[in-house]
């Protein structure tokens, strides 16, 4: 089952490589990874998605917790949560296709953030499935480049991941 694990860790050099190294060392799989400092500059928040049985996920969270720089972590998929991913996608946009792309972007509530006479760059946020659906919808129109941020997530309601 796919899981979203969100980690608060010391914002120190080498901390990220420990997390990534752990996954390859123990034969776990990282599907996506997003990391940035938090409002507290001594802490980074890392969100990763992975797949595995309950037993494997239990080992992953235990092994992550053993890393000295990991302060706290949560498996967001254990409770209700919001997950979002940002995508920037560059499309060939000429002639009649320009209007068609514009309409599709509107339907998906995306924005065109850069325009040239032949290219639209579209920004879209949502969960992974929505982004996949958009790529499929515009698939015939000439996708030039896709950049996805990886999943970020947060628990719903009062529940917070903080010190």
């Amino acid at each position, binding site marked *: 089952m796919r899981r979203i694990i969100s980690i608060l*860790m*010391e914002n120190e*050099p*080498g901390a990220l*490589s*420990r997390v990534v*190294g752990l996954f390859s*060392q123990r034969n776990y799989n990282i599907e996506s990874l997003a990391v940035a400092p938090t409002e507290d500059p001594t802490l980074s928040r890392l969100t990763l998605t992975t797949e595995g049985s309950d*037993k494997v996920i*239990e*080992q992953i969270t*235990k*092994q992550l*917790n*053993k890393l*000295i*720089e*990991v*302060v706290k972590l949560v498996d967001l998929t254990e409770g209700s949560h919001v997950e979002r991913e940002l995508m920037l996608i560059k499309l060939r946009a000429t002639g009649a296709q320009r209007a068609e792309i514009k309409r599709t972007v509107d339907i998906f509530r995306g924005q065109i953030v850069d325009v040239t006479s032949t290219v639209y760059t579209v920004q879209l946020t949502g969960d992974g499935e929505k982004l996949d659906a958009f790529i499929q919808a515009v698939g015939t129109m000439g996708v030039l480049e896709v950049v996805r941020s990886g999943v970020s997530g947060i628990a719903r309601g009062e529940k917070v991941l903080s*010190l």
Partner: protein
Amino acid sequence: MELLSGAEMLIRSLKDQGVEYIYGYPGGAALHIYDALFRQDDVKHILVRHEQAATHMADGYARATGEPGVVLVTSGPGATNTITGIATASMDSIPMVVLCGQVASHLIGEDAFQETDMIGVSRPIVKHNMTVRHPSEIPQLVKKAFYLAQSGRPGPVVIDIPKDMTAPNGRFEYEYPEKVSMRSYNPAVRGHAGQIRRAVDMMMNARRPVIYAGGGVVLGKASQQLTDLAHELGFPVTNTIMGLGGFPATDEQSLGWLGMHGSYESNMAMHHSDLILAIGARFDDRVTNATDKFCPGARIVHVDIDPASISKTVQADVPIVGPVDSVLEEMLSLVRESEEQPDQEALEAWWKQIREWGQYRSRYHYEQNGDNIMPQEAIQALYRVTKGDAYVTSDVGQHQMFAAQFYPFDKPNRWINSGGLGTMGFGFPAAMGIKLHMPEQEVVCVTGEGSIQMNIQELSTCKQYHLPVKIINLNNQALGMVKQWQDMNYESRYAHSYMESLPNFEKLFEAYGHVAFTVTRREDLEPVLEKAFAMKDQLVFVDIYVDPYEHVYPMQVAGGSMKDMWLSKTERV
């Protein structure tokens, strides 16, 4: 406040940490540190002949005393040569602090002379590692390194020290911190009371219980607590190869050790048990055999300081995360207070069954092969000559198994072997580390003619520092364990498991200024060992030519359960 250079702070921090000896080898990036070392007498340095041996010396010391061993090496090859020793310590949870020189900060990343990314290279095999970014943080980092190495589940910690951090012209205020606290690291200080109660309830209701005790009992200094609890309950105890001595092997309740080459009675008792009380053990594949066939009728209580060890390979019914000593103490007081008692009738029947297994195949069983000296009888002779009270280190292979099987340890910290990583070349330097700190104790390395050649250069170190260890070589003229597997699985095709062109060991040891004896006849075995151990001031190598055909038994059948074993070359149960 005193003003010191980075190098001086490093050495002073070691002194204030209570470090007496460090083991190492100098080189360019570490020279400021070596100069600071030269100008003081508190911290003594042992110059090894290869950095790997420095880590094993530190490791042997740590295993015998429980205190972290300290290693000092230079950058690049000095640092990478410690990797095997760090991995050895890591697999067996041994506290160790490794100080590595590094090229100066401004050169890092430029492929400078003797530059290696030691932080990156060592990352998967350390508990933690860190780089010095400013000389003033050295005392703090040293304190942190020792704290991490020793607390919780112990392990090796590496500090990478760029050369400019130790430059003699820098001057910084020195103060060694009294303690260190880290918001991200808080090992458990006691087990969950409710879980401990649940575990005790299960013990009271068990009919076929086994205590399965690992290296955590030795590391956690909980042998007495384990022994008291086992005696109070009357339960049988089996140790892992890492846990030997954690429960006295000659105690009536001891079943010997378990697993791939464990005793018949241990493996049978485990397989047929209804309750396994696992204390500081990690259900390693060399213990469990196939996990899907592991002990089908047993419920499992698992006590360990490391939550990640629990339910990693075998699911625990009652997990208890905490230090083994305090958990065992709490269990013992609950057992003593309890109005209930384990079912004595069931326990008697269980013991009767276990005794039958023990009689069917004694844990000290082996067969003679003509006039050949059997490796097992060499170990038994060693046991008699050292009165069972030596510190015994071993290398890796058949001799290691024979030593563990035929030298019963009654005290913890006496059996020193590389159980997890299986590092050949470990035993001799480990013995040196112990002898250095305990010159009055008998320290003996049991080895083979393959393993001993993997760190034999340290004979020179022994001469320099006068380390009269004894080395018992079970010489079967082959890489015995490899050969055994080739006999069993590869129709005796001996691909590179033989040892042609062995050195003349007597001349070799003599060349290094030591003594060597060769034993080829049974009647010489014990007298020569007596003579060797009487030479208190000499390093003595006893080269014992043993039966070259012998296998280690029992041996679990691969892919089977714990009870599926070969008991001899022909008998499979």
